[in-house]
């Protein structure tokens, strides 16, 4: 009996050893470059996880159908191994280990959210696996000295500082008063730091600085304070629930504030869920389809949006666009490195300087993209109640003029 068990475990150990050693040749099999990704397909990030996956898949299909990746005179196609991380950082880190040490993946794509990227980055770093990520914007990702992490998106602290600058500009260059309400997670707190920097830079003053809980669904107290203090700008960042709750309660409580700036408006489908109540809200976004960046694969934002809609049946949120851009970056780096050596690819990634439909991409030593400014759009509705997001800042990309100050509720 005991002997049987020993033999069994010996055999299974051998099988595991054998299967891993076979699999570790899997980075480039035949004409395929295999990338690994742990993505939240279930759990609390599942909707954005799916946007991310759709973005990756769209780019893989496009690049493959347009000739693939040329390395060493040979043409390769992309393929991605996906695992579901269940929106759980621990699971994500385990899966990264598994992708690298069992499946033999040598190049990774990022997961969704700053939190999960933070969990995976130490693993990819340990194995020297280059990772291009598109959905982790937290500033702390870029201050750890990671050498193999590259983010195509702008860091979180740049999300809303534009709004403060804009408010000061509209106030004839004079400082403004700012009310802030931020959730207590890594991302929102980074956004807050950026806003604080902007407040300091412009000599403005913060009058309210509230922290919102994870289980947020009522921010009436903050809004009552806003009514009392009458700030020039109200800044809210608390993922989709923050955006939805803020708009609902601002409308219900008739809070008048000249400028309202938020994050996660398009993920919250703000104008769809709230209609006219969301009008005039300013939203920070990594990307908008009307931006005029161009590349050879997706042409431009409008074409990308139309193609995406045709394939997946909905308008692409920026989470999908940036995910697609990550693949374009990889392709570019492989071709410039002209090799599959991880170090060479890493160096090629670090030297990236390109334009994609999503924006310019150039990495700082910390790994963040420094060549792509955030845009602010404003929700604008016509008389029939149909609402659209229109880019209002920076001026270079603006497709509409900022409406400022926001009309009072009594006048709407």
């Amino acid at each position: 009996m005991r002997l049987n068990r020993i033999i069994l475990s010996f055999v299974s150990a051998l099988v595991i050893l054998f299967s891993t050693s076979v699999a570790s040749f899997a980075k480039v099999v035949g004409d395929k470059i295999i990338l690994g990704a742990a993505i939240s397909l279930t759990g609390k990030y599942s909707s954005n996880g799916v946007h991310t996956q759709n973005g990756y898949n769209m780019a893989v299909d496009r690049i493959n159908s347009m000739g693939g990746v040329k390395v060493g005179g040979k043409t390769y196609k992309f393929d991605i191994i996906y695992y579901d991380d269940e929106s759980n950082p621990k699971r994500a880190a385990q899966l990264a280990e598994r992708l690298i040490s069992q499946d033999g993946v040598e190049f990774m794509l990022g997961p969704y959210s700053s939190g999960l990227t933070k969990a995976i980055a130490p693993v990819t770093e340990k194995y020297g696996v280059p990772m291009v990520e598109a959905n982790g914007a937290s500033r702390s990702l870029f201050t750890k000295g990671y050498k193999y992490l590259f983010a195509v998106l702008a860091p979180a602290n740049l999300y809303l500082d534009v709004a403060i600058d804009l408010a000061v500009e509209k106030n004839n260059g004079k400082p403004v008063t700012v009310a802030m309400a931020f959730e207590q997670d890594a991302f929102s707190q980074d956004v807050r730091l950026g806003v604080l920097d902007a407040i300091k830079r412009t000599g403005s003053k913060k009058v309210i600085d509230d922290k919102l809980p994870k289980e947020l669904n009522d921010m009436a107290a903050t809004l009552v304070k806003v009514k009392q203090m009458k700030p020039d700008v109200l800044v809210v960042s608390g993922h989709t629930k923050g955006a939805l709750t803020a708009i609902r309660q601002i409308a219900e409580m008739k809070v008048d504030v000249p400028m309202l700036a938020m994050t996660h408006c398009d993920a919250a489908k703000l104008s769809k869920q709230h209609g006219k109540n969301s009008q005039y809200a300013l939203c920070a976004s990594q990307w908008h389809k009307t931006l005029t960046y161009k590349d050879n694969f997706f042409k431009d934002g409008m074409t990308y949006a139309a193609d995406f809609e045709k394939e997946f049946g909905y308008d692409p949120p920026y989470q999908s666009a940036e995910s697609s851009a990550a693949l374009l970056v990889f392709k570019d780096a492989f071709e410039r490195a002209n090799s599959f050596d991880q170090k060479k690819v890493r160096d090629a990634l670090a030297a990236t300087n390109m334009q994609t439909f999503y924006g310019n991409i150039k990495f700082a030593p910390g790994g963040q993209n420094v060549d792509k400014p955030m845009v602010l759009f404003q929700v604008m509705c016509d008389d029939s109640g149909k609402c659209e997001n229109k880019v209002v800042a920076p001026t270079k990309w603006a497709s509409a003029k900022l409406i400022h100050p926001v009309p009072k509720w009594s006048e709407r």
Partner: protein
Amino acid sequence: MDFMVFQYPMITVQACLDGILLGILFALIAYGMALQWGVMNIINIAQGDLVILGGYIAYFMYLYGIHPAWGVIVAPVIMYFLGVLIYKLVINKVVDRDLFISILATFGISILFMQLMNFAFGADVVLANSDYGTTMLFNNNVVLPNSKLFSAFISILFAICLVIYMKKSKLGRAIRATAQNARAAKILGVDTEKVYAATFGINAALCGVAGALISITFTIHPYMGLPYTIRSFMIVIVAGLGNLPGVAMSGMGLGVFEEFADYILGTEFRIGSVFLLLVLILVYRRFKLSRKREYLK
């Protein structure tokens, strides 16, 4: 610490009114919990998840163009049958066992519901718009969203109906008899199995009503159930079982406490302060009990 709430009398009024309206809604959920706790001796950890599920029913009605306020009628009907089903599948196997087993079982149901809701409805935060407008008081200094007034009104209405039902109807009497002494009730011909199923169904129905109201007033999300479970647990602990006025009072008290904690300590400590209060109350109760015991000695 921020004592703005006391500096401006209008903010104090606002906080009190917000708290009371919110508290009435909490009390409705807590009443369901008290009922089933009293009758079946089961602490239902899945209470909050039943609430959220009720919210999704109203949300889906809203999505298909029906006014979400009708959810207040539809959700309890659906939830009643779901409650009975849960009873038949799980709860009847743990109803006579000790409290720990039932907590484990309902904890399991809670996790299952969270994941199923996430799977079926997605992880997005959603809400149902009622477009009820706003009531302004005191020269526009105090604002009360009509959706909150509507929630409080409906909660009170359901509570009154339930009290009358428990007093007058045959099943209501059977439920009360079972709560007092299940064995005696059984001997006297009460079908306790049926009573248990109905009680669990009624509790689920109350959760359904509350959920529909929450989707109209606040937001819902598959993982947002736990704070509602904790709040109702706490209200029941303070008020005791089978004490409806007590539940209503402690519900409103908790609502006002939360609002003030929100203003004074900050929104991030809102739920935390509820947990803290729960600990304090439990410690205080134990302290009081131990003194009583000494006195008896």
